[in-house]
């Protein structure tokens, strides 16, 4: 066998190896897509589940900060240009939202874990993630302690939210918090 024939053989072997590597890479992609009917990769599906979980935690963290009067922590759940709109008015950005809350709660006594006056039950989460953005709706039911120290449902409503991933963390881009019951139109 001449040396040129030998080197041609090795070119063939190298080509077979190269084709196999390219084919396996393509198969990897196909395998991930096949399981989802071609919608998204395994990584994207996992990321979406993690995002839903992070947003569910954000929804609950909001209520926790509000109920324990951690107003600074609460305001930081909003994006730089995040907005809040509800019964006590509207505001934009963590600083604006903090100022609005401090004003609204100026006369409220500080939080005392031994004298809890109220809390938010947060339920019915419906979260839709789309890349670095998301939307959600959920319900809030506000319970309070009556003057005679009894537990009473007081107000109920829902949240319409949009979210944005900012520096790797999910934040409220906009939150609208309408009252449903009692009806706003019946409020004196």
């Amino acid at each position: 066998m001449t040396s040129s024939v030998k080197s041609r053989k090795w070119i063939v072997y190298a080509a077979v190896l190269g084709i196999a590597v390219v084919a396996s890479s393509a198969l990897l992609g196909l395998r991930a897509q096949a399981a989802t009917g071609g919608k998204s990769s395994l990584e994207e599906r996992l990321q979406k589940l993690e995002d839903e979980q992070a947003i569910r935690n954000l929804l609950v963290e909001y209520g926790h900060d509000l109920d324990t009067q951690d107003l600074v922590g609460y305001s930081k759940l909003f994006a730089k240009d995040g907005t809040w709109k509800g019964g006590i008015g509207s505001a934009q950005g963590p600083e604006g939202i903090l100022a609005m809350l401090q004003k609204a709660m100026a006369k409220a006594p500080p939080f005392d874990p031994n004298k809890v006056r109220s809390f938010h039950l947060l339920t019915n989460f419906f979260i839709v993630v789309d890349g670095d953005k998301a939307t959600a709706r959920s319900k809030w039911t506000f319970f309070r302690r009556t003057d005679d120290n009894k537990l009473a449902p007081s107000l109920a409503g829902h949240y319409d939210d949009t979210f944005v991933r900012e520096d790797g963390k999910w934040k409220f881009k906009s939150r609208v918090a309408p009252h449903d019951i009692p009806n706003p139109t019946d409020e004196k």
Partner: protein
Amino acid sequence: MSIKAFHDRRRLVAAVAAAAVLSAAMTLAAPTAKSAAGRSVEERIQALQSDRQIRELLEEYGHRFDTLDLAGYSHLFSAKGTWNGNFGGSYVTATGPAEVLAMMMRVLGKPQYDARKVAGFHLMTNFLIRVEGDHATSFSRWTYFIRDKDNDLTPSLAGHYEDKLIREQGQWKFLERRVFKDIPND
């Protein structure tokens, strides 16, 4: 077949076999590739499953309490798991399933659950769970509704739980449950 052709074919077979092994290795290795955050796909899926299993544990606690399955309830605690809170008029710490069961029976007696005469139930909400491998912490709220003397549904008590959890033999259990009653105030 000449000897040369035989060797050439062997080389070709060897190259194809090497390529097959390489591609199989790449295909198998892909799911355990580390993400940008440094956690493998396996670890990330485990964290999601742990979160789900802890949610179920928090709800199962309420279900077993409400249906008066006190033995089942006590087994939601780890061998060293503690229940801490006011119960039956005083602050109690019970450690391990046997003590938790004894505490429940001391306060509740040996009540029989009657599905047609439900006396009350716990609404479990506001789960805030943080998983760290085989350990986790959680905050959650409980709101207890009762059937009052007029047979009406009435919110009666509300509070929250602060928990430490542990995964033992693949099962999440309470390592420390601190029970707080928020409303009415004592």
